Every structure is written in structure tokens, then in C-alpha cells.
């Protein structure tokens, strides 16, 4: 806390050398329903060479805030206020007063921006190279010099510049596009980089890798970075300061670690508590009740008062001005001093030292009750050496009539069991085959080899030739809840019509009124009231969380034994995830189902499995590489890839508390049509040795019976040839 030395009452005392000053920035949209303010009188200073994290849930005005710096609010919106920019070379630029041509120069040369939609930020018909060249020419830069710069930046971002420049946008993976976009924003050497959810669409591993790249890049290119995200844990160890946006204004700004340990605003505290992570006890995680206010309704007083547990009369009328917590820590809450009691945090009361657990100690994970896992019971669903291979047609311009289509080995020999009331979570990067595996498990994807058995009956055999259990019953017992709730419901059908479908199919004896009654009571049960109103709605009239509930009810109405839940919460705002997962667990109790979860997020996986004594399985390139209880997987991962996933999971820990070296040698996942030989992870594994290249490791038990931990890595086996083999990691 070196800043504490500065003792001045001026609220901007901590900012000694501002590069940007925003004063009373307001964005208004005229809409049919009235004028809406989507940025409400925001003032903030940004220190030269700092990383400012801006955290806000969807609809908090954070994208407007990002666009404001470049005076780039999209059309019907109007921006008022003042934004001053102080370049390194001295002087002052009034951003909102620039003429069109000045603005054209100012943007990208001084302040550049990285959008969240990297997928669609490139012109699909032009090569990456052209994007760089046209940017350089538009700003009158020498192309050859500029391209040299571009190449350097691209290789700083761990990409092969020549290959990338030659490609068309659609030929690059999401993570690569995102990095190319960062390179493109840096090619004119701007001083400020505004990043609006630059990693939202990416896997955790890629997110984490990009975050650490951003740190390096910032040092190397002397940048000031404004990093905007909905994901608080993601920025805490990156940012110097964090501002929290709620309902279109900052409600708290302060140094990252202070905000983390001594958040003063009830909303910030609630947000911290609602975020699934790997360290805090799962029972402490709580959703935030209620929803954020509508931009059209002007709220008097504190914008959080409808959801705040401490709200009183004063909050409803009096706008809480900034209160100074510390020289560089402001909060907009009348009663901030009492917030720590009203919204207690697990690490409250203890000093800054104990607030961050010692990383050597096993962290506060509860040990599950030791009981042999369903000893003697028969599994509901059992996968035995399941393979799913797709054929991908490959046409690369040649008239090659005779090449065989390439095979994508989406799932390549995976076995595991699911018991009654069981939960198994599969984690892994996108493209690792976890979704395909899940679909194969519930009989929606036909395995090309291996068996999927439901209570001992081969599912596909039952379908084709009939078996002891009729296929109809199997079909009814295995259900799915999709990742994107908006797409899982037919947008042309009302909620009622979608929910009626399983009842019409399976319960002939119910008439229209019975169906209606049952659906109404289900909706009510999951908190969608009044249900009479909800059943008449179309999916687009529901929020993401509500859509997901409807999809969940629809699966439950089938009364299934196993539900495949494919990333059921990843489309939701962070603060809603815990609530959704709790609801799913409650319904599990009520309906006696088992879940097969799919997630790319270890924190969610931990939350679910720890509450249910489930198992986490780690999938990499079509292989199950490790499986075990959350306690084992998180505290004592045996497989280096599991370790990488743990590293990638954002934590509510400050910078000093964690290691920043990536435990992987390569950022990008190898091409699944041509997986590496031997251990598939050997191209990225920091521990890889010669033998890993040739021999494929078997799954071996590495824990006790209670922990069910098994891993497919030679390092889990003592006395293996591995230990005498040459390392293949070059530095």
C-alpha cells in the first residue's frame, strides 16, 4: 500500500499523471419507450501506464464506456460530457471536440480498441495482411516499417506471422483471431488500448494465456490499458485499479487488491460472493437476488436500493455521492462502513495477510464424506471405450480426387460410469470433444466404436434390434439441456407450446388443462411468476436465465434418469450462475436424476461436484486424461494438463499470490484431425519427455478408492521408463 503515503483530500490525489480524464460522460438513446441513459454522468481519471479494470454485468453500460474514449458511440446514441487526453508528448486533446479527420487520426494512433466480437471484426473476404496494410496506409505510415512492427507483435503473441498474415479470417481459430485483433490495434503504436471483453468468447486457457500476454505487451509497448469485462476474477490479478459499474455508473473504484479484500460497496461484495471460484468454500457462494434496473426508468437515490440488503429511506431518495474509503478508493454507498457486516465475506475481519490463503496449503475444500462410490451398485449409464470419429472433407484448392477424407477423432476411446443421483462434470477446451462425448453418452450421437449402456442394455442395439429395455424407455431416460438457451427453444413457439411437447408425447392421459396446470406449477416452482404470463411468452421475451429454466423444466418433465447439461450456465451473467446451478441441484433432488455436466470452467465444475460429491473428468483431444473428486483434481492434479486448467481458472487472488508462468509450452490446441502421437499433450506439456512422444499413457489409479482419482500420465506412475527418458522441452 504505497499509495497510502499520499494524503490529500482531493479524490484524484492518487492520479499523479493522468493520460485520460473523463468528466460527466453521459450517453443517451432515444427509444420508443422513452429516452434511456446507458451511461450516467461518469467521471474517472486514468493514470498513465496503468491497467484499469472495469467490471460490470451485461447491461451495465460498460460497452458504452469503452466506446466513449474513441467518441465512437453507435448511431442513435449521443455522448455528452468531456474527455481530455494528455499525450506523452505533452499538451491536451479535447476528444469530443475533434473534427472528423482529426478524429480519424486520433483513433487507432493514440487510442486503439479491441472489441469483444473478434470473430466478426475482420472483413471476411480480405486477408489478414490486407487489414494491416490498409490500416497503415490510411494513417500515412510506411507500410514496410509498419509490417515489420506487425510481425514482431504477432510473434510476441505466439503466432507465426507469415502464416497468419497469409490467412483469411475464417481460417484462424477464435483465440488466434482475438490475438490478431490485438496486434492490429497495436500496429500504429497507440498509447492507450481499450479492450472491451476481449476474451469473453474464448476458453479459459486461452483467456488466461491472453491475459498474461497483455501484461507482457503492456510493458513492452508502454501502454495504458482499460480492460472491460463482466468477469471480476479475470481482472483482479491483471489490473492495477478496478472500477465497478452498476446501472450505468461507477459504484466503486479502488486498487485491485483492496477491492478484492475490502470491497466497500454491497454490490461489489455480493458480486465477489456470487462468483464461482476454486478457493472460497462453496457454501459461501450466493447469487444476487433481483435484477438490474431498466435504463429507461430514471431511478432516484441509489440505483442498487432495490436489491440491497441495507437499503433504507435515505437510499431511495438521496443519490450516494462518492465516499472516500482511502485516498484512491471511492465508493458510492451511504452506509459503506457497515457493508462488511451486512454482506459478510469468508475472509472478513482478518487482515490482508490471511485474506489470501497460502498456496502451499490445501485450500478450503471440504473433504467429502468418505464412502466408497456406489459400491456394489450398477451404473445407470456406462460408457466403454467409446469412439466418435467424423469425416471432414478437405478441399484445399487442388483437384485431388483421390485423397481420403480426413478423420476428426472427436472422441477416441473413453470409458466412465454414471450412477443414480450422480454428477460427473467433463471439463476441457473447446474442440476437445467433450460435447460430442456427452451426446454419445445420452444416445444422440452414434459412437463409431465402443459401447454405451443404459442399465446394462446397449443403447444402439436397443434401437436397432430391440433389447431387454425398449429404446423408447432409454430415450425418455436420457435428456439434454443445451448450452445456448436461446437456441434450445424454438423461437417460433411460445413457452407453453415448447413445454407441452414432452407431455403430449409421453402422457396421453393428460388433457390440455392438466398439461397447462402442470406447466404452470413447474414454472412457478422455478421462480417464474406469474406463470400465466410466462407461458404466453416467446423465447425472445425471456432473459437468458429464464430461457435456461424453461429448457431445464422441459427436460425434467420427461422424468429422465440422466441429463446431459452442456455448459448450462456459461451463457449467463456471472452473478446468476450460482443461482442456476443451485436450481439444477434442487431439481436433481426432486426428480432423482443424475447429471452429466459439460463445462470449460473448472470453478463451475468444482461448485457442482463439491455440492454433490461428484467427479470431475478432464478431457483433452478426445481422451479422458484425468478423473477424480474436485478436492483431488484441484488440490493435487496429477496430469500436467489438469494443472494448466487450474492455472487458467481466474481466482480471487491478487497478483502477488499466484504464479504467472504458463504451465504450457504452446497456447494453441493442436489440429484435431491430426492429433499428436503418443501422449496427445506432449506438444504442450512442460514435463514432456522422449517417451511421451511414442507411447500413449494408460489411465492409472493415483488416489485412494474414495477419491477415484485416475490419470493418464507417466508421471503418475513410479518406476516408469519416463523418469529415465530425455526431456523434449527446449527453452
Amino acid at each position, binding site marked *: 500500500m504505497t499509495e497510502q503515503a499520499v494524503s490529500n483530500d482531493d479524490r484524484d490525489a492518487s492520479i499523479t499523471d493522468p493520460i485520460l480524464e473523463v468528466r460527466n460522460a453521459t450517453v443517451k438513446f432515444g427509444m420508443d419507450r422513452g429516452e434511456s441513459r446507458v451511461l450516467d454522468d461518469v467521471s474517472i481519471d486514468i493514470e498513465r501506464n496503468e491497467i484499469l479494470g472495469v467490471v460490470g454485468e451485461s447491461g451495465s453500460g460498460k460497452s458504452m464506456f469503452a466506446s466513449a474514449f474513441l467518441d465512437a458511440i453507435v448511431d442513435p446514441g449521443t455522448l455528452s460530457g468531456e474527455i481530455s487526453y494528455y499525450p506523452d508528448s505533452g499538451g491536451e486533446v479535447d476528444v469530443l471536440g475533434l473534427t472528423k479527420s482529426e478524429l480519424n487520426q486520433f*483513433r487507432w494512433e493514440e487510442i486503439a480498441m479491441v472489441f469483444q466480437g473478434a470473430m466478426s471484426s475482420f472483413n*471476411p473476404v480480405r486477408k489478414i495482411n490486407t487489414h494491416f496494410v490498409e*490500416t497503415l496506409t490510411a494513417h500515412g505510415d510506411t507500410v514496410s516499417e509498419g509490417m515489420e512492427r506487425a510481425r514482431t507483435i504477432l510473434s510476441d503473441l505466439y503466432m507465426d506471422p507469415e502464416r497468419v498474415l497469409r490467412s483469411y479470417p475464417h481460417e484462424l481459430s477464435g483465440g488466434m483471431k482475438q490475438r490478431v485483433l490485438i496486434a492490429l490495434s497495436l500496429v500504429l503504436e497507440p498509447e492507450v488500448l481499450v479492450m472491451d471483453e476481449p476474451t469473453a468468447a474464448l476458453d479459459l486457457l486461452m483467456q488466461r494465456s491472453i491475459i498474461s500476454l497483455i501484461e507482457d505487451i503492456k510493458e513492452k509497448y508502454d501502454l495504458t490499458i482499460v480492460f472491460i469485462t463482466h468477469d471480476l476474477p479475470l481482472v483482479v490479478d491483471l489490473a492495477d485499479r478496478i472500477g465497478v459499474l452498476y446501472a450505468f455508473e461507477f459504484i466503486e473504484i479502488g486498487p485491485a487488491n483492496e477491492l478484492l479484500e475490502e470491497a466497500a460497496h454491497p454490490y461489489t461484495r455480493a458480486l465477489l460472493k456470487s462468483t464461482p471460484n476454486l478457493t472460497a468454500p462453496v457454501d459461501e457462494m450466493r447469487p444476487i437476488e433481483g435484477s438490474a434496473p431498466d435504463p429507461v426508468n430514471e431511478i432516484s437515490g441509489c440505483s442498487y436500493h432495490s436489491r440491497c440488503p441495507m437499503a433504507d429511506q435515505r437510499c431511495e431518495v438521496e443519490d450516494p455521492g462518492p465516499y472516500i474509503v482511502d485516498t484512491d478508493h471511492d465508493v458510492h454507498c451511504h452506509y459503506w462502513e457497515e457493508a462488511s457486516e451486512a454482506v459478510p465475506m469468508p475472509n472478513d475481519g482478518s487482515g490482508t495477510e490471511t485474506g489470501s490463503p497460502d498456496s502451499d496449503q490445501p485450500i478450503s475444500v471440504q473433504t467429502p464424506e468418505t464412502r466408497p462410490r456406489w459400491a456394489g451398485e450398477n451404473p445407470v449409464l456406462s460408457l466403454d471405450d467409446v469412439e466418435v470419429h467424423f469425416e471432414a472433407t478437405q478441399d484445399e484448392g487442388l*483437384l485431388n480426387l483421390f485423397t481420403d477424407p480426413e478423420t476428426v477423432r472427436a472422441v477416441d476411446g473413453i470409458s466412465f460410469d454414471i450412477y443414480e443421483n450422480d454428477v460427473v462434470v467433463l471439463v476441457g477446451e473447446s474442440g476437445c470433444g467433450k460435447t460430442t462425448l456427452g451426446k454419445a453418452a445420452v444416445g444422440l450421437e452414434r459412437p463409431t466404436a465402443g459401447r454405451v449402456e443404459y442399465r446394462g442394455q446397449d443403447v444402439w442395439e436397443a434401437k436397432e434390434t430391440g433389447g431387454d429395455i425398449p429404446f423408447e424407455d432409454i430415450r425418455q431416460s436420457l435428456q439434454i439441456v443445451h448450452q445456448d438457451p436461446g437456441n434450445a427453444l424454438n423461437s417460433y413457439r411460445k413457452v407453453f407450446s415448447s413445454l407441452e411437447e414432452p407431455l403430449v408425447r409421453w402422457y396421453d392421459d393428460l388433457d390440455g388443462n392438466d398439461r397447462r396446470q402442470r406447466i404452470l406449477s413447474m414454472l412457478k416452482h422455478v421462480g417464474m411468476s406469474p406463470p400465466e404470463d410466462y407461458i404466453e411468452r416467446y423465447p425472445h421475451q425471456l432473459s437468458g436465465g429464464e430461457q435456461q429454466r424453461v429448457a431445464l423444466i422441459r427436460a425434467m418433465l420427461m422424468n429422465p434418469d440422466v441429463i446431459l447439461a452442456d455448459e448450462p450456465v456459461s451463457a449467463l451473467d456471472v452473478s446468476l450462475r450460482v443461482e442456476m446451478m443451485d436450481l439444477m441441484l434442487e431439481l436433481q433432488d426432486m426428480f432423482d436424476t443424475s447429471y452429466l455436466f459439460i463445462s470449460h470452467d473448472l470453478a463451475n465444475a468444482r461448485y457442482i461436484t463439491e455440492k454433490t460429491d461428484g467427479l470431475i473428468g478432464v478431457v483433452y483431444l478426445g481422451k479422458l486424461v484425468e478423473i477424480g473428486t474436485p478436492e483431488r483434481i484441484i488440490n493435487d492434479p496429477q496430469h500436467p494438463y489438469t494443472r494448466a486448467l487450474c492455472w487458467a481458472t481466474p481466482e480471487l487472488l491478487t497478483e502477488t499470490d499466484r504464479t504467472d508462468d504458463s504451465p504450457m509450452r504452446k497456447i494453441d490446441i493442436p489440429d484435431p484431425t491430426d492429433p499428436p502421437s503418443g501422449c496427445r499433450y506432449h506438444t504442450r506439456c512442460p514435463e514432456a519427455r522422449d517417451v511421451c512422444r511414442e507411447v500413449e499413457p494408460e489411465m492409472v489409479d493415483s488416489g485412494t478408492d474414495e477419491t477415484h482419482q485416475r490419470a493418464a500420465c507417466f508421471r503418475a506412475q513410479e518406476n516408469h521408463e519416463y523418469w529415465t527418458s530425455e526431456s523434449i522441452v527446449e527453452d
Partner: protein
Amino acid sequence: MDWRVRRIGQALFTVWGVITISFLLVRLMPGNPMSAMIVELEEQGISPTQARYLVELRLNIDPEEPIPIAYVNYVGSMIQGDLGHSMYYDRPVVEVLATALPWTLFVLSWAAFISFFLGITLGALMAYWEGGRLDLGLTGYATVMGSVPFYVLAILLLVFLGYRYGIFPTGGRQPTGVEPGFNWTYIRGVIHHAALPVISMLVVSGAASLSMRGNSIRVLGEDYLRVARLRGLPDSTIAIQYVARNAILPMYTGLMISIGSMFGGSIILEEVFAYRGVGYYMMSAVNQRDYPLMLGAFTIITIAVVIALLIADLTYSKIDPRAGGGKSEGL
């Protein structure tokens, strides 16, 4: 298999299909033209052998041959470019049509070129000033024009610009009394004669402009356009390389398909304007019940359209890097 090979195979398959259809129509249908022709010839007192020879010459089908062999021979002569012998003009069909085809292509390519160009430009402008006066006016115009059959427009043009005011000739394809050749009077005359047919075909640009407008509005809302603006790219680059290119792509095959329908339309237009192209001969064959010529014209038109569509599909992957042929249908 490479999708290009597949695509070419599909084109050949279509041509084969059309040839087969015409064989079936001529040879097998009850009351088919071949038998009718034989009866007619015999009524004229021509000996059966002679009649048989004449039928074989005109239709490429020997009535005595068993059907499968006749079919093989028919396809064989078609492939060799022998489309039979026109009864009315008493010349090989190929000869008749060979002189006509360039004129049809001349009119069509002008009409296609102008209508695409107009459609794209107007559509882009409409999108740029979305909701403005030009936009509203042209949208209204395009809607109204969509309900006017092009031949109605052609007749009206002929009545007013041809007969009433005499601005354009009312028929023919080249000026009379001018030596054909590369001289200005002749070229001007040719353009003058082609003007009305071309103008009548431009109705299609109404539809083209509407879809261009829709596409451009969509592209204008894309993220990459916003990024391009922020990158400070000049307006001309944005307009052409970003908006226009991406807006035209989805229309490209549509435009090529409309060449097919314009080809069909040219039959009616050439009849109205007495413009002696392929369509004109096809109509005269219809009126004279000159089956070889009619089927020949039909085959020629089909082949031309198939080639146009083939070119469209094959070149599409050149202008849209994402189109890898079958790739999108792979998984």
C-alpha cells in the same frame, strides 16, 4: 471428390437430361411429332423409304430402329453438334441458330450488365440513405415494377417509343441498307435496334436493387465495418471493399440465375420486337410446328444457361474465400 468435378458433372448431367427429355418427347409420347411427321410425309405422296430418310435427317431418329439404339444414336449425333434439320427453313438447325445466337447474347449481356450495375449502385445508394427520399421513391418504384410483366413493358415501349414517336425501330436487329461491318453507322444502328429489348429487360434491376439494399443495410451493421471506421480507413475503401463486396456476395449466384430467366424472357421479347435471335427462331418454329428447330433452340438455350450457372458457381469461390465448395456441407 472435388466439388468442382462434381459441379461440372452436374452440368453435364443436366444437359444429358434435357437431351433425353427431348428424345422421349419426340419418339415416345403418344401422338409424338415423329409419327405425325411420317404420316404427313406419306400423305404428301412421298414413298415410305424416302419419308423414313427425311425423318431421320430432320430429327436424327430412325423410326425403324429399336428405341434403345435410336436413343444412343440420337445422343451421339447431339454430342457431335448435329441438332437435326429445320423443316421450315430447310437448313441444318445448327446453321440457323448459329447466326442467331450472337445477337441474343449481345442483347442479353448488355441487359445483364446494365441491370446488375444499376441494381447494385442504386441498392447501395438506397442503403446509404436508408429511409431517405431516394430510398422510399426507389423502393416504391421497384415494387410497382415488380408487378409489371416485362413483355407488357415491352409492348408499351414499342407502342410509344416505336410507333407513336418513332424514336426506336419497331423491329429487326440491324439497320437496313448499311453494309454490315466495323463502321460507325452500322454499329450505331445495331445498338439502336437492341435498345428497346435491353430497356425492357432492365425491369429486373428493380429486384436486384432491393436485395442489394437489404444486404448493404445488413453489412452496415456488422462489427467489422465499425472496426474499419475506427481504424480510419478512407470512405472509398469502406464503401467498395467492405460494404459493396460483402453485400454483393450473397447476390452473386442470384444474379447469375437471373441470367437464366432473362434467357427465357428473351424468347418473348425477341418475338415482340421481331428481333431475330434464338428466341425468335424458337417462336417461329413453334408457330410452324418445326419440331427440330424448336428442340434445337431449347437445347441451345439450356446449354447456354447451364454454362452461365457453371461459371457462376466456379467463380464464386474465387471471390468468396469462405466458399470451399462442399466444405460447408462436410460435417
